[in-house]
């Protein structure tokens, strides 16, 4: 009696865990089968562009958005990813006009709008760099499930470096819903090919 009851509880617990795993890992049926999911990534935000204009989640709804988080003190990982994004824009040709890459800082204390503008310009002027108040940045990072941690380093500017998730989120035009991720492993060629497919199917 107790044994079968335990078994039942165990089975239920197992199903809940499997369900949760499927949910969070984004292996949801449908789409192009690569991380396409219906889980909530993204949401409302209010940030500042280098020219001082206020940017919200509605600002680029007419385009495929590539949302990437990083910071300008980062000399290795962020430039690599931004360079791949710039390469993808290059390869997309005229279709690049349908894509808006967005680089959001996770280091608002140091990254002023001007610093963000100068930084993204070095890779491609079509990339927009956004910053905001610490609260605004914390909110948008949370919405995009971005891990951020301040790491003390006495020799670094202002005594710290940042650990951060390095994922590019692809958001579709119209409702701005999350459709796929690119990683640090995704090359400019691969990004361009997948974006072309998305654009062609829309």
């Amino acid at each position, binding site marked *: 009696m107790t044994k079968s009851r335990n078994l039942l509880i165990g089975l239920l617990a197992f199903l809940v865990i499997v369900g949760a795993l499927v949910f969070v890992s984004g292996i949801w049926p449908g789409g192009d089968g690569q991380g396409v999911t219906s889980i909530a990534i993204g949401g409302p935000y209010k940030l500042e562009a280098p020219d001082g204009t206020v940017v919200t989640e509605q600002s680029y709804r007419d385009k495929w958005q590539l949302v990437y988080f990083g910071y*300008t*003190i*980062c*000399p*290795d*990982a962020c*430039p*690599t990813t*931004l*360079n*791949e994004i*710039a*390469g993808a824009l*290059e390869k997309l040709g005229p279709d690049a006009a349908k894509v808006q890459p967005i680089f959001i800082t996770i280091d608002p204390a140091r990254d002023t709008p*001007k*610093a963000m503008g*100068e*930084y*993204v*310009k*070095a*890779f491609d002027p079509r990339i927009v760099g956004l910053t905001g108040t610490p609260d605004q940045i914390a909110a948008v990072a949370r919405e995009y499930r971005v*891990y951020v941690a301040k*790491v003390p*380093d006495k*020799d*670094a*500017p202002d005594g710290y*470096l940042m*650990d*951060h*998730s*390095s*994922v590019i989120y692809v958001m579709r035009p119209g409702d701005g819903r999350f459709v796929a991720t690119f*990683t*640090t492993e995704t*090359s*400019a060629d691969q990004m361009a090919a997948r974006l072309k497919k998305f654009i062609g199917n829309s």
Partner: protein
Amino acid sequence: MIRTSIVAAALICGIALGAAAQQSGVTVSDAWARATPSGAKTGAAYVTVKNMGTAPDRLVAVSTPVAGVAQLHTMIDDNGVMKMRPVTAIEVKPGASVTLKPGGFHVMLMDLKQPLAEGQSFALTLTFEKAGPVETKVIIAKAGAAAPAAMGGVNMGDMPGMSGK
């Protein structure tokens, strides 16, 4: 006495070789950096180190006149979270080479005196535990470049005449 003349000979050798600095069995080559956005306080430099000797050696320090602070750093990809950390030394086994490249070991340049401009170069001194200091010339490639310009990186854009235009 003998040791002094070996060091002296090695120094002369190093000066004579110019491009590929060589000293006490360690060669340093293909030094490059990424251009930095204007206003940037940090940058990264990359280099290939080869141990031609018979004993292991360790790269323990880096310095350059273009940055207030230069350190050996590594980039760790911890399940999609990028973590940059200082390292105290990079070991180079005898006969082996270590390439500092994007996504791994790099020379972290902090407190840059001025932005690193594409096409220009700067001096970098690598100090080894046994081989001592070795100076090399760092060529600046474009911002975010994946490889030194001279080696034809994968992201260097289309070659003229090959773009199909």
